[in-house]
């Protein structure tokens, strides 16, 4: 029997509770960002959609608990082929939003398969790394998972979603590191990739060679990040507004619905990418600390789940999910503060967006699954 009531005795309550708190903060921040106080129709619609996503995600969490997570290990190859297939089919039926091609339209909902691909790739990579765990110290054992992750990464880059492809790479590095991969290879691939990108950009700027993998606006964001002073055409607009919003919140914030940067619409993409700036403006440093501490607890506990996992596969799945959330939090919060270049990565559980919410909740479902099955059940 796959499911047993006793399984719940093992649950680490921190994880669901912190998740609920983050979602609640998110709903509050979206309400303000969507100007719900101004009788805005859009605001009500956004909140409704966000709540629907939460319900949908919760249903997934429950469904996931019905199976032992090892079933994903068993079907890893099927999951992998499915992931590649969906990512590839986007080029035929996908629609474009904000420069990214990777949207599939499902009636009134648009779904971004690359979001889900992060989770499915964690399930696949965990199996590939687990299977090759004896060889991870050697180049062959290292290259296999690398090739597995490379194909979806390239597909996502081709959809102009640089942020998500970076997440995949961070997940890969994190899982390989925890899985026992050879540190030298990790340094090599990380450093090598970084040098290649630097080389591509340098050669574009110096010799005007075509940019591979990059779009002009992505390069612009990078330039602004490196040098915010270069601001002739307003490419630093978002960053400046975000910093003003955050900073002006001071210790206690301006209060809900009272953020001028937010409500007067200086802040761009405020209910999605820059939701953290809204939190900073309206809830101040206190609010920022609360959110950061909640993420700290969540990540800490997910890593604990990894440590206590029954087997190596579960341990790797939890690690991959921790790495995914970690990078999202670092990149999203970092960019609002000018510490990271601007990408479209959402803040898990807080940013508006159905694909991201459902995916994040599925990930939490998987963590809980690994968590509650950490011991043999005693009848």
């Amino acid at each position, binding site marked *: 029997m796959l499911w047993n009531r006793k399984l719940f005795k093992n649950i680490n309550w921190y994880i669901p509770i912190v998740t609920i708190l983050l979602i609640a903060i998110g709903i509050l921040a979206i309400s303000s960002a969507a100007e719900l106080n101004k009788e805005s129709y859009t605001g009500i619609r956004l909140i409704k959609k966000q709540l629907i996503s939460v319900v949908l995600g919760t249903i997934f969490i429950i469904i996931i608990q019905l199976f032992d997570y090892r079933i994903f290990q068993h079907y890893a190859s099927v999951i992998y082929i499915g992931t590649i297939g969906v990512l590839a089919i986007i080029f035929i039926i996908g629609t474009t939003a904000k420069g990214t091609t990777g949207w599939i339209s499902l009636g009134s909902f648009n779904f971004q398969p690359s979001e889900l691909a992060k989770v499915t790739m964690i399930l696949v990579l965990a199996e590939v790394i687990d299977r090759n765990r004896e060889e991870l110290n050697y180049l062959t054992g290292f290259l296999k998972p690398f090739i597995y992750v490379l194909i979806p990464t390239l597909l996502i880059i081709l959809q102009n979603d640089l942020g998500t492809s970076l997440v995949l790479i961070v997940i890969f590095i994190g899982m390989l590191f925890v899985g026992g991969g050879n540190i030298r290879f990790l340094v090599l691939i990380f450093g090598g990739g970084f040098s290649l990108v630097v080389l591509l950009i340098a050669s574009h700027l110096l010799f005007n060679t075509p940019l591979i993998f990059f779009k002009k606006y992505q390069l612009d964001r990078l330039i602004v990040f490196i040098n915010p002073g270069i601001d002739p055409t307003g490419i*630093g607009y978002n960053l400046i507004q975000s910093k003003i919003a*955050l*900073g002006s919140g*001071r210790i206690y914030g301006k209060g809900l619905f009272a953020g001028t940067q937010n409500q007067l619409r200086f802040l761009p993409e405020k209910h999605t990418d820059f939701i953290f700036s809204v939190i900073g403006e309206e809830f101040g*440093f206190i609010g920022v600390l609360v959110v*950061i501490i909640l993420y700290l607890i969540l990540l800490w506990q997910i890593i604990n789940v990894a440590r206590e996992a029954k087997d190596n596969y579960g341990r790797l799945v939890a690690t991959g999910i921790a790495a995914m959330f970690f990078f999202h939090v670092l990149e999203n*919060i970092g960019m609002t*503060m000018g510490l990271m270049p601007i990408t479209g990565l959402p803040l898990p559980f807080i940013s508006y967006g159905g694909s991201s919410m459902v995916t994040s909740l599925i990930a939490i479902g998987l963590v809980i699954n690994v968590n509650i099955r950490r011991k043999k059940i005693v009848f």
Partner: protein
Amino acid sequence: MDERLKVFKIVVVLTLLILALRAGQLQLFMGDYFYELSEGNRLSERPISAPRGKVMDKKGNILVSNKEAYDLYLLPNEVSPEISVEDLLQELASLTGLDYGILQTNYDNQERSSSAVLLRRNISREMMVIIKENKDALPGVYIESSSMRDYVYGELGAHFLGYVGEISLSELREFNESGYNYRGGDIVGKIGLEMEYEQFLRGHDGIEQIEVNSRGQKVKTLSIKPPVPGNDLVLNINLELQQYFEDILLEEFYRLRDIAADDPELFPPTGAAGIVMNPNSGEILAIVSVPKFDPNKFVSGLSYEEYAALNNDPLKPLFNRPIMSQVNPGSVFKLVTGTAAVENLGVRADTVFYDRNGKYTIGEWEYRNWLSWGEGEIDFIRSFARSNNVVFYQLGHELYKLDRGDKMAWTARQYGFGSLSGIDLPGEKAGLVPDNEWKMRTQGEIWYPGDAVHLAIGQKITVTPLQLVNFISVIANGGTLYRPHLADKIIDANGEVVLDIKPEIIRKVPFKKSTFEILRKGMIAAANEPYGTASRQLRDLSVKVAGKTGTAQTGIAGANHGWFAGFAPADDPEIALVVFLEEGNSSSYTLPIAARVIEKYFSMQVDESGE
């Protein structure tokens, strides 16, 4: 291996610590600085206006463009605290001669924020110089060069191009509710293509955000949001043909009015319209409404008297006749009656009718032909060419006997009458196709045989000139009803196509190919056979024309609407056209106009291929 999970934990803790420290730096140490910026005390925004997109004809001739203008703004943040805004506006009014009341009203009406307040649009160059010279006395007053709409050819195409004006309160509300971001004082399309394609044509203003010191002087530029120019609209209109059609229609219009002024028997036409379209795609090549007006006047600001004069002019120059006039089509409608007769009564090209004495009688009622004598034996084709009412009275009566005339109304609706054609212009009218159901609903009476015979010759029903030419196109192309469209494509500032407007089929009308063959033969005979009603002016042209005239009674004897609708070349149509003279006595006056427009179109083609 737990060691590595520990390392992961350390990385997480350190990273989140860095984020928290950075937040502390921004919010605690620099918090006051950012707070002042956000409060607008030290932040000011200057608009950078973005040009609206141009409109051009198919060949790229620019019809609507922008010219330089100056807008006068007040930046409240930059007014030093010692001076009141009222005093400042008084000073400004006395220096420039602008009306203080208007300035104050404009200032009061706009939402208070850190952004600029538009005091006055399109100030003169002289005024700009005065203000610049007195800069020190006018802190916070600021001039921004902007652009003003320029209708390059004045009155040309005024009705379809439309004009722009300042956004009204209701428009502001409506646009912003549908998710577009507009502000008070923005310029929007008010009618015509300017309105239809507003969302493409409008530019998006940029903003220069500057940090100012406590005296309102600029310290530095914080950011510039660059203006985005509007997209350009490329039309299917052919400028040369449009200009020619407008010129001769206007010329004939005034000539006919002059003649009528001297002849008490004649009525002066009160308006005219003409359309040339490609019957194989619905592309509008020329669309004319007479009399005309100059849209530039609306842009520079019309006084109340000027507007009232235009609005109350009995010839209604602002009325866009091709799409808004709803009038009887007269005998042109016999082509619809003919369709219903062939499809439902089994009438053929060689069916012979008999016109004994120029009258058709139903009981005690008598319906007359336009001739007072009978034409004797007459076949179906010839009855189109002669526009013989007796034949069509009979057909109308026969159709009535089938199902109380519903078939005829249905046939007319299939051809697009009674519904909007969907042309890309606002304000189109649908006309009315009357039938039994309509008459019961509106008058509480049934549809009588007398109604049916009147409908058969194009009375009772009302159509727009556009519907009529679109209907003629269906006959010309053999059964396809297209959505007429003026715009060909929309291109951005870099010349990339944003929207390519392709021919759009409304429906394939459910009639036989052979039916259209008969209608075409009738129209060819009308324009080419010696006995045809339109042949004298059309048979000697360089191309073979097919056409049908129509004279619709208006209720005032003599003040009839004149129609011509046709296509050319008859065997392989490239254009369909309609000419409409409102209360223009007779259809015969439309024919010289049609002849000249057709000759013009085909001579242009020769010129081009000859190059």
